[in-house]
Structures are given as structure tokens and as C-alpha cells.
């Protein structure tokens, strides 16, 4: 056992927890914004150390190949978002949309969300994981409503109600999993420890597991934003502060998906249980196709990219539902690329909305002329998210489509149709936003472009060359997922 590694699990939980408490009381926006970045940086470094020194699982915490990908990705995007947030929040304070009191609250909640997400990821106990996801929901609800406009409150309320129902269903599923495990493992804490569940899952009652999975998929699926449980997602993205949109799309959806994947693995070891794949494939495909058709009619720029998140979560769920080493690998790659790209897009959109003073697509035009750097960053981001070569998402989508073609051509055709419609809709909108006659007000902002370009560079690099260590790591995870 390695002592240093145990500390890393503790630090990725304790540092954000302590900073949340500290940021809640400290005044001054420059100081707190920097502290927020510092806390995120230290957390990211300790998360990175988990790659090299991995602790042994105990009844509460577990770090394996699977959640390590999520932990590193989550804390990396959290770090870059905190850098973006610092410049974004400065503008919001100046324009008076946020007051200093609410800013303290915002920073505290940002770190509290980090605690909740890290806890959900490292939890080895399905009850603890549930509690963590519940707290993550709570913190994001509070942040979505932070502007206190009628629309923001309405969005927060909708998110709250749907999210609460979702996690209630997930809890019922969790209880059913415990009931299935209890006759085999015995009463008490052991029967909720995931490592115990997975090793002895073959002996569980398949009927109970089936029912549990339906509840868990619907429950956590609400948080993933799968159609028809997605209604909260566009509102929450559009009305909250943009850094939160980036964190929601880039991270929280993944965390919920991670929970679904854990239970999928559990069902996979039980031969009598239903195959979870077809359920996930169906929900993923419906989400993809629905979202791509919805993309076309959006008039609000943040709302449009929120629908694009539904689309991509659909693709990822589809890939994991297909299963097998290749599709799982592609799904994992796609998830990573989507997180990086979508948060980069939201960084750009956040600055664009500040420059133009509006989120309405009709009032934004000719960005590449008026604000060249922002405009081209957005173009690059959309090119990446639409899946054009040679960027990372092209590679993962190509892998998903080709592995599906080999196994089920009919599904692959639906998938390709969805992807193409999404691509077309995105470019029609992008054309109006980035090119053509300059429309709307335009002021310069001293935005920080570093996070945006860091993400896009990573996505570009991944499209051209994947380091062999990363490939081996992802292949291990793909094998784990079965």
C-alpha cells in the first residue's frame, strides 16, 4: 500500500471543500478568483498524481482505470474553467449582473461542485455515489438561478424538479441493487461496496437487477440529459452563468454517465440479467436524432450548444451501449473530446455574449470581422464539435460509425443521418454568427483566450496523434467496460 496515494484521494476532496468554506467568507473579486484558480490547480495536480500512484480500494473509495480518466478530465476542465471564470466574472461584476455577495456564493458553490463531482467519481459505494450526485445537482441548481431573472429562476426550478425526480428514481434503483446483493453478500455496508458487487454479481437475482437498471438508467439518464428526460438541460445551460454551462456540459453530464456505466458493468457480469446495451443504444440514438433536429431551430446561441450537448451525450451513450473494445474505446475518446471542445465553445460563447450584450443569434453577426480572435475561435470550436477532420471528434465519431457498420449497418445509417443533420444545422447557424454583415453592438473585452486555445490545441493534437500510453489506458478501460 502506498501512503502518498491515499492522500491524493483525500486532497481532491479536501482542497475544494476547504476552499469552498474559505471563498464563502473572503471579500474582493480579484483575490477570490485567483484563489479559485489556485485551488483548482492544486486539485488538478493531485488528481494527476492518481495516474501514477493508485491507492488500494477501501469500502468508501476506489480508483481504477475507468474513473481515473474521469477524474483527470474533470479536474482539468475545472481548472481551465476557473481561469475563464475569472475574466468572465469580472465583466459580470462591472455590468452589475452579479453583486459581490453573490460572487462569494458563486465561488463557494463552484468549489462545492468540485467536491461533489470528485466524490461521485472516487466513491466505491453506490450509496455514497448517489449522495454525491445529489449534492452536485443541488450546487448547480443554485448556480443556474444566480442571476435571479425570471427566466433564470424558471430554469433553475425546472432543473430542480426534474433533477430531483431523476435522483429519486436513481435511489430506488440503488435500493434494489442492495436488495439483490444482500442475500449473496450479507447485510450491511459490504453489500453496497461496488468492488464487492462486481466480483460477486454473477450470483445476484437477475430479475431484481433488471428492474434496478431500468430505474438507474432513467434516474441518472435524466442527469445525462437523454431524451425524453432532457427538458431541463437547454434552460439550465442558457440561463446560468456561462462557466457553469461549460462545467455542466463538459463535466456533470459525464459524471452521471459514469454512474450509468458502473451499473452497466454490474449487469454485464450477471449472465441471467438483460443486456443493458440495447436500452442504452436506443436512448442514445433517440437523443442524437431528436437533438440534431432541434438544433436547427434555435435562436439562442447557448441553447443551441446545449442541444449539441444532448446530441453528443446521445452519441457517447450509443457507443457504450454498443459495447465491445472498439466502440467503448471510441465512446471514451468521444467523451473526452466532447468535454474539451464543448467547454472551449462555451468559453468563446461567454465572451461573445458579453461583447454583444445578447445571446440571441439574430443579433450576433460577422464576428470574424469585428472580433477576429473570438470569431475564429468559435469557428474552430464548431468545426471540431461538428466532427470534421483532422480534429479529435472526427476520429472518435469515425471509430463509432465504422465499428457500428461492422456489426449493425441499419443502426449505423441512422447514426450517420443524425450526425450529418447536426453538422448541417450547426454550419447554417455558424455562418450567420461568424461571417457576413457585422450585426449588433460590439465592444472589446479583455477576455482570457488561454483556456479556449488550450482545449482546442488538445483536441487538434488528439486528432493527429494519440500518445501510445493514452491508447493503452483507454484500451484497458474499454476492456473493463466489456
Amino acid at each position: 500500500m502506498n501512503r502518498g496515494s491515499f492522500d491524493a484521494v483525500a486532497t481532491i476532496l479536501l482542497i475544494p471543500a476547504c476552499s469552498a468554506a474559505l471563498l464563502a467568507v473572503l471579500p474582493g473579486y480579484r483575490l477570490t478568483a485567483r484563489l479559485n484558480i489556485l485551488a483548482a490547480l492544486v486539485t488538478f495536480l493531485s488528481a494527476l498524481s492518481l495516474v501514477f500512484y493508485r491507492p488500494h480500494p477501501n469500502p468508501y473509495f476506489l480508483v481504477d482505470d475507468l474513473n481515473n480518466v474521469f477524474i483527470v478530465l474533470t479536474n482539468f476542465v475545472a481548472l481551465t474553467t476557473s481561469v475563464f471564470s475569472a475574466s468572465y466574472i469580472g465583466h459580470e461584476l462591472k455590468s452589475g449582473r452579479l453583486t459581490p455577495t453573490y460572487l462569494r456564493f458563486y465561488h463557494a458553490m463552484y468549489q462545492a461542485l468540485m467536491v461533489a463531482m470528485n466524490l461521485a467519481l472516487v466513491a466505491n459505494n453506490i450509496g455514497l455515489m448517489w449522495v454525491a450526485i445529489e449534492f452536485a445537482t443541488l450546487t448547480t441548481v443554485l448556480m443556474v438561478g444566480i442571476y435571479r431573472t425570471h427566466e433564470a429562476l424558471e430554469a433553475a426550478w425546472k432543473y430542480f424538479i426534474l433533477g430531483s425526480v431523476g435522483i429519486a428514481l436513481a435511489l430506488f434503483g440503488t435500493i434494489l441493487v442492495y436488495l439483490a446483493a444482500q442475500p449473496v453478500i450479507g447485510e450491511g455496508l459490504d453489500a453496497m461496496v461496488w468492488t464487492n458487487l462486481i466480483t460477486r454479481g454473477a450470483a445476484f437475482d437477475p430479475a431484481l437487477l433488471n428492474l434496478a437498471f431500468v430505474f438507474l438508467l432513467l434516474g441518472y439518464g435524466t442527469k445525462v440529459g437523454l431524451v425524453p428526460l432532457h427538458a431541463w438541460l437547454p434552460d439550465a445551460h442558457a440561463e446560468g452563468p456561462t462557466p457553469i454551462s461549460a462545467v455542466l456540459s463538459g463535466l456533470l453530464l459525464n459524471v452521471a454517465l459514469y454512474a450509468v456505466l458502473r451499473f452497466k458493468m454490474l449487469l454485464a457480469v450477471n449472465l441471467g440479467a438483460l443486456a443493458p446495451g440495447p436500452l442504452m443504444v436506443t436512448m442514445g440514438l433517440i437523443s442524437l436524432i431528436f437533438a440534431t433536429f432541434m438544433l436547427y431551430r434555435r435562436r439562442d446561441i447557448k441553447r443551441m450548444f446545449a442541444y449539441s450537448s444532448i446530441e453528443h451525450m446521445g452519441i457517447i451513450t450509443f457507443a457504450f451501449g454498443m459495447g465491445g473494445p472498439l466502440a467503448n474505446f471510441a465512446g471514451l475518446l468521444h467523451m473526452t473530446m466532447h468535454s474539451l471542445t464543448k467547454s472551449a465553445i462555451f468559453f468563446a460563447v461567454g465572451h461573445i455574449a458579453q461583447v454583444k450584450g445578447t445571446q440571441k443569434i439574430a443579433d450576433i453577426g460577422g464576428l470574424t470581422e469585428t472580433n477576429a480572435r473570438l470569431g475564429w475561435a468559435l469557428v474552430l470550436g464548431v468545426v471540431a464539435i461538428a466532427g470534421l477532420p483532422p480534429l479529435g471528434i472526427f476520429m472518435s465519431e469515425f471509430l463509432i460509425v465504422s465499428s457500428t457498420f461492422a456489426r449493425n449497418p441499419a443502426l449505423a445509417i441512422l447514426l450517420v443521418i443524425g450526425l450529418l443533420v447536426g453538422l448541417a444545422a450547426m454550419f447554417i447557424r455558424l455562418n450567420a454568427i461568424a461571417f457576413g454583415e457585422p450585426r449588433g453592438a460590439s465592444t472589446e473585452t479583455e477576455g482570457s483566450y488561454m483556456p479556449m486555445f488550450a482545449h482546442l490545441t488538445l483536441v487538434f493534437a488528439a486528432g493527429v496523434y494519440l500518445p501510445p500510453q493514452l491508447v493503452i489506458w483507454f484500451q484497458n478501460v474499454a476492456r473493463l467496460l466489456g
Partner: protein
Amino acid sequence: MRGLVFDIAHVLAGTLVLVSFLELYQDRLYALLNVFALHALVLALSVAWQAYIQNAPHLYITASIALVFKAIIIPVSLHRIIVLFGIHREIETVGGVGLTMLAGIGLVALSMVVMLRVTAGDDPLTREDLAFALSVVLLGLLMMVTRRNAVSQVIGFMSIENGLVLAATGAKGMPLVVEISVAFSILVAFIVVGIFLFRIRERFDTVDLRALDRFRGEQG
């Protein structure tokens, strides 16, 4: 003795389902609040009884949370919110009472069929507890769907939560039940404070589609 233990647990869980039905057709907010307080009281009794028969003292904490927090504090504060907002008038239900009750009966039948079949091998006490718990959860969902007022939606959500607590305590020796019920209570407290602070009166005050479009940011 075994028979009596089983019967009392059964009666309490069954009463919870009945009270859920009572909630479904209350068309005044005050009455709805009172019925919800009764719901929480029955839950507290049921959990306390489970604590006694399972010899699990930590469940008494869950029972007292249900009693103090849900049966007293929440109804009283919601009562004050209703007075403050002046919304103690009739609340609309979608589809009418008769239809809602029929749907409720259908949901209970569904949960009986599903749960009793799936848990065929388990302890009869656990089986029936779970079947009742799923009924309470589904009835709570039905209530959230049929109501538009924020306060009655919260009550619907808390009924769902009561059903989950019933399920969690019925599952013998389930760990973290207390933690989960505390986490839920925090969630509910936030919701209630949220309603109070943000004055969320109605979900959509109007059926005017233009207002909805404005809310979606999709106008013009």
C-alpha cells in the same frame, strides 16, 4: 408474534399508500398540507416500527427526522408561505379527480405486479414493503405531473421521498439510510427556502404561447 410484527408493518405501509391517494384529490392547499403531515407521521411510525423489529437503533434517527422535519417544520413553513403569497385558493388538477384516481389505481396495480413478481424469493415483509414503497413513489410522481402549483409539486416530491425512505428502511440492514434521509432533507429544505426567497408562485402563470416563447428565449 411473527404474525403480529408482520401485520403491523403491513398496516403502516398500506396506510401510507392510502394517504398518498388522499393527497391526490385534495384540491385546497391547506388540506393538502395537512394530509402531507399525516403522510409523514405514518412514515415516521412505519420507520420506527422497522427500527424496532430489525433491532436497528440508527433507524430511529430517520424516524425522528420524518416526524420533526417533515411532519412539523415543513408543513408549518409551507403554511406560512401560502398565507404570505395569498394562494390559498383552489388548485387545478389536470384531467380531473376521477381520472387521476383511476390512474393512481393503475399505478398501484402496476407496482404490485412488478415488485411481487421480481422479488418472489425474498422475505415476505420486504416484498410487500417494496411493493407499497414503489406505489407511493409512483403516486407521488403522478401528483407532480397533475399539479402546476409549486407548493403542491414540492409536496408531490416529498411524497416520493417518503416512499423511498420506506423502501430503504424495508431493505433489511441497508447502510447509509440515515445519511440518505439527511441528504434528502437538505434538498427539501433548499427547495422550500427557494420557493420562499424566489417567490415561485406558479410554474407558468399563463397559457399564452408567446409568454412561453419568451421564457425559452426563442421569440423573434
